[in-house]
């Protein structure tokens, strides 16, 4: 079952992100002084329930990957809070953080760059087991690695091989096995299937869905491909220039988008059926620079519905229907 089952909101949230900001400094001049900032993430808040998949979509530079990395504290946020099972990730000491990384793992986009070419598959998948002392002795580690490889659909004979001997899809499976080794609760999938051909992409998506069910995993599924995100996610957050502009159950978001950016984004997705003819909203121009994002609503220079208020006042993300929030002064 894809995306269909709703996750009940009664349990305590697994993850709470509050007012997250990440501004990267730009240095210039002779003394390499900070001359400006890239506002990569500019006030992002969301909650996640255990077992839930939250999709983060948006175009290049909207801050979706930076958000994912700030959640794991792979990069230090400039402001805001990340609470994992109620504990503040930002306030943790390095030792506490190391304990936390067992629960939160990441799968990267590029299956070519994210595996060490000098390590065997067994060493890559088993590394976390050794570091976190989850298995004792070579025998136990090997048993666990074999089991993990089988879980992701690889053969135990693959253990002694090196990453270059595998295809893109198989490498992505190795990356998934590595992430699963520590029995995480939350997996950040950062464009995890984007580099793969469609037939292989479908294999990996199906695998991720199976694993979610089998291990009750939660995913933050970051991707620019809206069809893929819609397929796998329970809820989807649409980002534009560092902010969430709309957050809704994936069914509601795609059936009735409230924010004009979401609407345009959805209408731009090519449909693999020549009999379907939909009106397309073609947005003029490019995404503005995140160094000096537009005033008020970041989307106003490209928005067909923009009014004076949109230029001066940033809309807050507010609830328009149960569970359906949008940041727009004039929503649909």
């Amino acid at each position: 079952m894809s995306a269909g089952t709703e996750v009940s909101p009664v349990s305590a949230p697994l993850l709470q992100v509050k007012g997250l900001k990440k501004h990267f400094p730009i240095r210039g001049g002779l003394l390499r002084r900070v001359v400006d900032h890239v506002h990569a993430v500019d006030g992002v808040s969301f909650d996640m329930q255990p077992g839930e998949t939250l999709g983060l979509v948006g175009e290049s530079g909207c801050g979706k990957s930076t958000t994912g990395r700030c959640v794991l504290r792979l990069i230090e946020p400039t402001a805001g809070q990340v609470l994992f099972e109620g504990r503040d990730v930002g306030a943790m000491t390095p030792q506490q953080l190391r304990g936390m990384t067992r629960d939160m793992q990441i799968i990267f986009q590029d299956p070519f760059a994210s595996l060490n070419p000098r390590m065997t598959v067994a060493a890559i998948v088993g590394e976390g087991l050794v570091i976190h002392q989850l298995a004792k002795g070579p025998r136990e580690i090997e048993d666990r690695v074999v089991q993990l490889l089988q879980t992701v659909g690889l053969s135990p004979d693959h253990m002694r091989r090196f990453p270059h001997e595998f295809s893109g899809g198989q490498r992505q499976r190795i990356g998934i096995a590595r992430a699963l080794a520590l029995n995480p609760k939350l997996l950040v999938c950062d464009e995890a299937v984007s580099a793969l051909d469609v037939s292989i992409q479908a294999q990996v998506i199906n695998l991720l869905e199976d694993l979610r069910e089998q291990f009750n995993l939660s995913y933050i599924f970051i991707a620019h491909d809206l069809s893929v995100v819609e397929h796998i996610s329970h809820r989807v957050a649409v980002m534009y220039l560092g902010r969430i502009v709309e957050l809704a159950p994936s069914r509601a978001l795609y059936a009735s988008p409230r924010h004009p950016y979401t609407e345009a984004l959805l209408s731009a997705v090519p449909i693999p059926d020549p009999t379907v003819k939909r009106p397309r909203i073609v947005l003029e121009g490019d995404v503005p620079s995140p160094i000096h994002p537009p005033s008020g609503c970041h989307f106003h220079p490209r928005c067909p519905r923009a009014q004076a208020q949109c230029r001066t006042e940033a809309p807050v993300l507010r609830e328009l229907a149960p569970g359906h929030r949008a940041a727009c002064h004039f929503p649909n």
Partner: protein
Amino acid sequence: MALLEIKGLKTHFKTDDGWLHAVDGVDIAIDRGETVGVVGESGCGKSVTAKTVMKLIDMPPGKIVAGQVLWKGRDLVPLPPEAMQKIRAKEISIIFQEPMTSLNPVFTVGEQIAESLRLHEGLSRKDALDRAVEMLKLVRIPTPERRVTDYPHQFSGGMRQRVMIAIALACKPQLVIADEPTTALDVTIQAQILDLLQRLKDEMGMAVMLITHAMGVVAEVAQRVVVMYAGKVVEEAPVQALFAHPRHPYTQGLIRSIPRIDLDAQHKVRLEAIPGTVPKLIDPAEGCRFAARCKFAKAECTQATPPLREAAAGHRVACFFDL
């Protein structure tokens, strides 16, 4: 007579491990004013086919082993480089995927558009630059008079792809080969570029060979579709017929493996992944190259190579069975 007719084309590459059969017997015909989509996954030979037509393959290591590329009836394969130069950009032009790397960073975009105009149409520097401004206007770049003296790094990805289109169309070619023209772009920018290509095609009446891995793009833009797998054409049909009744198990798998945004949740099913991976193309064995991943494969599939046969009017498939 078709505008372009590729017949039995084989382009192989010499590697340390043997000959790589990148394109291994490809037939594609394109009529005047027609948009033909060529789809397939990485390594299926779609880009090599395009580059062979343009004679942009490095030889060695590449080699056109067999076949013809008939351009208005005349075979381009034996043509010497100087004669090919006269056809390239003037009659057939190409748009590449990467607008970052396919523009020259040390020349202004105006000079790059003007280059082919001066070469092929003998325009003066001044006239060619005036035409470059017109071309930038045509591809809807704001304030073209100012932008014509800008360098590629001063443009965004989408704008650079517009510049590439301006260069490709400057000499009003009869065929434009677009090799993954929107793959590196965001979805809203992709929509802009596809819109633009479609509009220019209608205005200028050129034929387009659109190479892509995205079935959605093909469904929206192409009139006819050629599906390639492992160096061969496995299916060819009008776009409606291909999507309504895909006949090759690979095409069927390809269509069913894409998540569909336009279907409501009740219709959502588990994606139908194609098991296994693409075969190695170094000295491949006889037989259907999809057989190892095909759920319908029988013994005969690995013994002989299925020919491309007409299964219905205008619908050709390279499979022994009617599926």
